[in-house]
Structures are given as structure tokens and as C-alpha cells.
């Protein structure tokens, strides 16, 4: 029965022994600073290094999770020098050599986070404690991301966030060990506002339906600020329970409320359901205040657009990235992903892939896996070629500053994946904001905590 056995490494024996010693209260004498030179959580001593992939494979954001997993597997292949290399050749500047990371082959373990913060955290703990993950990455909801990056800060493991859009992830809940490549709700507001003003005019009355949790609230706040700056009025902002399924009781009051725009601050299956049901209520064929009634979905992805089918046509929103952009990075990634899986990658897959590469690159540049050094290498790093134009990993809040996209549901899709049109690439300097507005405290990098 070697099925589940994991070898007793020297470290593990030490840990078990240490636990006994700690239990008897001798430990404080042994923890003198610097006793173990560069000993840190899951220091890879063998010839492989393990990534912990924390992915929602079931639950409301399962589709994004499955796509992220494909992207990570592809990234690991490319880092190990297999396949066509993907974006490794396009990233500038690059320290990647295509022979693993610091000469060690990359392996990975996965855990199903079920789109739940509690489960995500338990899974991350397991991957760190049992499987020896050097870095945890993934996740498809802001709740998960914030919960897991808090844990990673405690254990001293770097967390490269996957799809998370809440302002809080790099705002009030930011952490020294957590990094986000994806954009956020505030940037969606900045990007989308002017386009809405141009398309729908300055005199509009908006009705918000908002998923009743942190991400929904930050997005509602950002969208309110952006639309009210245009001169729009906010008729009502209604909170809906997450995963409600049937939104009809929230949609009926919209009909005669005097609003002429419905803003759906929903994501994943919730957005697919609420949008589909809103269309069933005839909202897109309606007139209000002498104008055509409009629906806006501030954040959407091609996976959701696919789920919503014809209902998404003509609807405005924002995205982090889209596969039919024409820059070399996007072309290379789409080609590589398409060859491997027969379908173009989603924005979730893209951000996951890029995060894996950026971590590997930072380790190569730092010359060590020691997290505080890797953090230093990532902070303030300026790079290009990953599909979003020149990008800065901002040191103050670990948020990437880059171009974002305003997109619109495609009226005449040529394939089932061709569901979005890119309306505008909003430039990086437009969506850059002062990190101080969201508060928060990154916390220290050193001393690097020693995970159990």
C-alpha cells in the first residue's frame, strides 16, 4: 500500500520531533534568529519544486476554475521546457530559461476549493503542509483570494491570486505575500464610465442589482461613482443573495421603477441567470423615459458570455484580457492554448498562466526561492509582452497596473467562442489610481514565517 504514502523527508522527521519539543516547552530556547540559514517554508531541497493550485472545480465559478487549471498545466509545461514555450519567449525582460525554476523541475498539486472561502483555505493548508507547495495560486472569487492570501501571509508562502476583481484584494485586505495580476472593480468603473456616457448619453437613470457580498458591494460603489460622475441618477441599488438562482422577484420591481438602465453587479452563474431572466422579462425590448432600456454587466468573461448565449449581444462590460487581441503575447498564448485544448483561453486562464510565469521569473531574478527575496523581485517590477501592454507590479499594493478592455457582446459571432468584441483598450495611465484610497496594510515580509 504505497498508494498514499509520502516519503518521510528529513524535514518532516525534524518537524515531528520539533512538535514534541515544542509541546514540552523547550522550543523558545531553540528559535534563535538565523539558526537555520535561509530555512523557510517548504524550501525545495530535491530536484523538483511544487506549485499548489487552488481551483474552484465545483460551485458557482467552476467553469473559470477548470479553465485556470488548463492554463496552469500549460504554464508548468512551458516552464519545464516542454511544448512550444508559449509566452516564455515573449516576456520582456525575462530571466526564464525553460529548464524549470532555478534548475528544478516544476510539479503541481491541485485542490478543489468549491468556490468557498473555508474550503479554499483548508485546501491551501493541505497543499502547503502535506504536499510541500512553495507557492499557492488560483481561485476565482475575491472571498477565496482574500482568505487564502491571509493564510499564506501566516505561513510564509507566496500567493499569486487568480481571478479576483474586488477592490479589497489589493485594498484594505492586501497582504505582503499576496499578488494580483487581474484588474479590479475600481478600474472597471474608470474604464467603462466614459464608454457608457458616449453610447447611452448623460441623462440616464440606473437600477443596480448587486450580489450581496464584498465583491458586489465594491463594484456597485465603483459603478455608482463612475456613472454619477457622468450625470446619471441612481434610482435604486438592490442586494440579491449570492446563488439565488431565480432572480424574478428582484426583476419585477425594475420594470416600473422609472429606471432606463439595469446594471447587473453579478458574476459567474449568477450573472448568466440574472441576465437571461432579465431578457425573459422583456427588458431589452422595452422603452423607458422615451429611451431604449439598456442592460450593463460591468465585469464579464467569455465563459459567462457563452453561458448567456444570445442574451449577451450588444451588452457592455469590462474584461482583463481577450483572446482575439492582436499583440504578439496574446497571439502566442492563444495559439499555444488552442493547440493544447482545442479552444481559445478565457481571461481567467490568461491571468492564471501569467501569474505562474511571473512567479517563476521573479524567483529566477532573485536567484532564490526565499519568499522575502522573491517579493522584492516582484515589487515594482516592470514587464511587457503578456498581452496587456507594458505592466507594472505596483509595490505599494501588489496590484498590476496595465491596460484593461471595454468589451461588448458580439452581434454576429463566427464561432461559439467569438462572443465578445473589444470596444476599447483603456490605457494604463487612465486606470492608474492612488493606492492610498483603499487603505490597508501589507504587513512585513520578514522574518519569513516558518510553516509547520
Amino acid at each position, binding site marked *: *500500500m*504505497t*498508494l*498514499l*504514502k*509520502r516519503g*518521510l523527508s528529513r524535514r518532516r522527521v525534524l*518537524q*515531528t520531533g*520539533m*512538535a*514534541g519539543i*515544542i*509541546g514540552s*516547552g523547550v*522550543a*523558545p530556547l531553540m528559535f534563535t534568529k538565523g539558526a537555520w540559514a535561509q530555512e523557510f517554508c517548504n524550501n525545495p531541497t530535491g530536484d523538483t519544486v511544487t506549485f499548489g493550485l487552488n481551483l474552484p*472545480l*465545483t460551485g458557482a465559478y467552476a467553469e473559470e476554475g477548470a479553465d485556470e487549471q488548463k492554463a496552469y498545466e500549460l504554464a508548468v509545461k512551458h516552464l519545464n521546457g516542454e511544448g512550444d514555450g508559449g509566452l516564455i519567449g515573449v516576456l520582456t525582460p525575462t530571466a526564464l530559461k525553460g529548464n524549470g525554476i532555478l534548475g528544478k523541475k516544476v510539479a503541481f*498539486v*491541485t*485542490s*478543489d476549493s468549491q468556490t*468557498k*472561502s*473555508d*474550503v479554499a*483555505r*483548508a485546501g491551501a*493548508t*493541505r497543499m502547503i*503542509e*502535506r504536499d510541500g507547495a512553495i507557492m499557492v495560486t488560483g481561485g476565482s*472569487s*475575491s*472571498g477565496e483570494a*482574500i*482568505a487564502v492570501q*491571509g*493564510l499564506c*501571509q*501566516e*505561513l510564509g508562502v507566496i500567493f499569486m491570486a487568480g481571478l479576483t476583481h474586488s477592490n*479589497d484584494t489589493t485594498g484594505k*485586505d492586501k*497582504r505582503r505575500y499576496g499578488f494580483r495580476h487581474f484588474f479590479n472593480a475600481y478600474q472597471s468603473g474608470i474604464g467603462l464610465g466614459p464608454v457608457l456616457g458616449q453610447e447611452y448619453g448623460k441623462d440616464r437613470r440606473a437600477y443596480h442589482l448587486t450580489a*450581496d*457580498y*464584498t*465583491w458586489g458591494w465594491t463594484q456597485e460603489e465603483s459603478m455608482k461613482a463612475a456613472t454619477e460622475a457622468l450625470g446619471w441618477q441612481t434610482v435604486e441599488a438592490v*442586494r440579491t*443573495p*449570492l446563488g439565488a438562482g431565480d432572480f424574478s422577484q428582484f426583476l419585477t420591481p425594475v420594470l416600473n421603477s422609472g429606471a432606463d438602465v439595469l446594471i447587473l453587479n453579478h458574476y459567474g452563474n449568477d450573472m448568466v441567470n440574472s441576465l437571461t431572466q432579465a431578457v425573459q422579462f422583456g427588458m431589452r425590448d422595452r422603452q423607458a423615459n422615451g429611451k431604449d432600456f439598456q442592460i450593463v454587466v460591468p465585469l464579464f468573461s467569455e465563459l459567462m458570455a457563452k453561458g448567456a448565449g444570445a442574451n449577451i449581444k450588444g451588452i457592455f462590460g469590462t474584461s482583463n484580457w481577450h483572446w482575439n487581441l492582436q499583440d504578439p503575447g496574446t497571439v502566442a498564448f492563444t495559439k499555444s492554448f488552442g493547440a493544447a485544448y482545442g479552444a481559445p483561453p478565457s481571461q481567467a486562464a490568461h491571468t492564471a498562466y501569467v501569474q505562474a510565469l511571473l512567479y517563476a521569473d521573479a524567483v529566477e531574478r532573485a536567484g532564490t526561492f526565499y519568499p522575502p527575496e522573491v517579493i522584492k523581485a516582484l515589487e515594482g517590477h516592470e514587464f511587457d509582452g503578456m498581452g496587456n501592454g507594458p505592466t507594472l507590479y505596483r509595490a505599494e499594493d501588489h496590484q498590476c497596473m496595465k491596460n484593461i478592455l471595454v468589451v461588448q457582446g458580439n452581434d454576429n459571432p463566427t464561432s461559439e467562442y467569438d462572443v465578445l468584441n473589444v470596444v476599447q483598450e483603456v490605457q494604463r495611465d487612465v486606470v492608474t489610481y492612488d493606492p492610498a484610497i483603499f487603505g490597508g*496594510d501589507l*504587513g*512585513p515580509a520578514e*522574518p519569513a*514565517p516558518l*510553516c*509547520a
Partner: protein
Amino acid sequence: MLAMSRNDLLLFLGFTIAVLAMPIWLQPFGAAYPDLLQRFMIFGIFAVGFNILFGLTGYLSFGHAAFFGVGSYAAVWSFKLLSLDAIPAMIFAVVVSGLFALAIGFVSLRRSGIYFSILTLAFAQMSYNLAYSVLTPITNGETGLQLTLGDPRHFDRLFGEAMPGQPVPTLLGQSLGGFTGFYFCAGFLILAFFIAQRITGSPFGMMLKGIKSNQTRMNYTGFNTKPYTLAAFVISGMYAGLAGALLAVTDPLAGAERMQWTASGEVVLMTILGGAGTLVGPVIGAWLIKYFENIFSAINETILARFWDFLPDGADHFAVVVSSKFVGEGWFLTLGLVFVLIVVFLPGGIMEGVRRIAHLFDRKRSSPTNPGKTAPHPQPAE
């Protein structure tokens, strides 16, 4: 109080040794890592406490996760406001969840049978939905309540110690991560087990069992059963709060999901799977379910391929494909099949299987491991 029968003492000692030695004997099963061991302890406590209500009185609560969640929130608030030390947090959590259980129990126990179950379920779902939405200032909603550098921690500030880095719960200044955390939880499981054992054997426990077998008759003989069932309800709520607090001690985050009805259902399943009414059964049920959830779900095709390697080519591929349906993401399927098989063939849960095997080996002596266990009783008509 401490006069235990020989059988009870043997059971208690055997249980204690088995628990403390878990890091050793679970090694070959791939489960000897601190996080899972801590969960074994925590959910063991939860199930032992649930059994005090369900196993002894027959009242099937479908909302026990609420007390678990309240315990977690209370503990994290104690970390945030008072001190990072685990002891005040746990006392606070047990008291708060006890009061919460008193309020809910007082109302719910006016009904029995399935009506009681639905009342407890309704209260728990209300707690969950509110924790997720309007109570966010207290619970931090979907993200879950976490510790931050800026927490007040009034007691700790009094002594002026500044911890570097992310704050983590401690015991007298000693961090509670890893195996230390396991032994900390194990101590509480053993204590919880001991108390449950004493309750089962006490006149109070007898009274509860009397309520289970025939409440109407108890009432006719002049007993007011309500205070007894309420006491059992509150005790088991405090057990749940203790378990919730321990989960917050080992991992200082309190999320609303742990109050959802599925979490309440899980502890019901643990108890019935192991054997309701027995002392050891619920703990074994809890361990089994957590083992499935953490180990079976992490088996992937690579591991399977290695496992079936001894088979001839083709056959091994087939075996991998078939078995992969039951592990990894399919672990839940295996669990469902186990439920069906156990309840069809072993209505008393795993402990009945243990007893049957013991019976085979020794027909003359009845098994010493199951003092409280009897054949399943028909429940009251409601």
C-alpha cells in the same frame, strides 16, 4: 465522579492512546499531517457533542452548524478585541454558543420529531443567510472574519508586546500551528470524550435515554422532560461552539459556509455513520468522512496509475479509468455509496459492525466497547 467501571476506564484509556498516537499510526494512510489531524480532533468533538443530543434523546437537530459557526466567530472576535491567547477565546466562544443554543433550544424544543428538525434548520439557515449579508459588519460576509495587524487586542496591548508579522493565535505566547495545534485539540477531544462518557453513565444520561425511548411515558410518570432535553441541547451546542472555536484557533478565519445546512447535515451523517448513541461511533464517523474529504479527493490519475501498475497493460488502464470515478472529484460518490451500504446492512452504523465482528470472535462475552449502544429504537410518531 471519578469512580469509573473497569470497562469505561479501558475504553477511555484506549481512546486516549489511539488519539495521541495518531501521528504515528496514520502515517501509512497519508493522513498524518497537522491540518487534517486537527480537523479529526475538531470534528470529533463536534460529533461527540451532537451525539449527546441526538444519540441520547433522539432529537434530530438539523441546525447544529449554527453553534459551530457562532463559536468560530466568537473566538475570532476574542482574538481581535481581547487577546491572541487561545484560552479566553475558547471560554468566550463556549459561553456565547451556549447562550445561542439556549435561545434556539428553548423555542425549538416546543416541538418534537420532524417539526423540531425543521425549526432548528430554519434557525440555522437564518443565521447563515444573515451572516452572509446584513451582518457583514460582524461576520465580514463571504470573505470571512480574519485577523489583521490593526486589531485593537486590548489585553495584549496592556502588556505592550508587539508581534511581528501576521497575528496568529497563541497559547501562553506559544504558537499553535502544526503538531502543537494537534496536541492542543487532542487534549480537548479527550476531555470532551471523558465528559460525554460521564454524562452517558450518569442519572442525567439515563433520563435522556428514557426520553428517547418513550417521552410520553416519562411525562405521565411525572417528569418534566423539557429541562433535561434543553440541558442536553445546550451542552451539545457548547460542544459545537468549542469545536468551532478550535477551528478558529488552528486557522483564524471564520467563514459563513460553516453554518450552512450542508454543514449541519454533515455532522448528522458522521454520527449516524459511526453509530448514533455510542460513544466512539460518532468520532469514527467524523474521522472517516474527513479522511474521505481530504485524502480521497486528492487522489489523481497519476497516483492511480502507479497503484494499478502491477496489472497487465490495458487492464491497468481500464482499472485507472474505473477507479478514477470514485476518487478525486468523485470522492463524494464513494461517500454516498458508503452511506447506502452501511445503512442497508449495518443499521447501527460502523459500531454495529465492530460489535458483530467482536461477537463472532467471542460469543460468550458481550463486547466491552459499546456501553451505551442499543438496537435502534423506533422514534416517536411525529
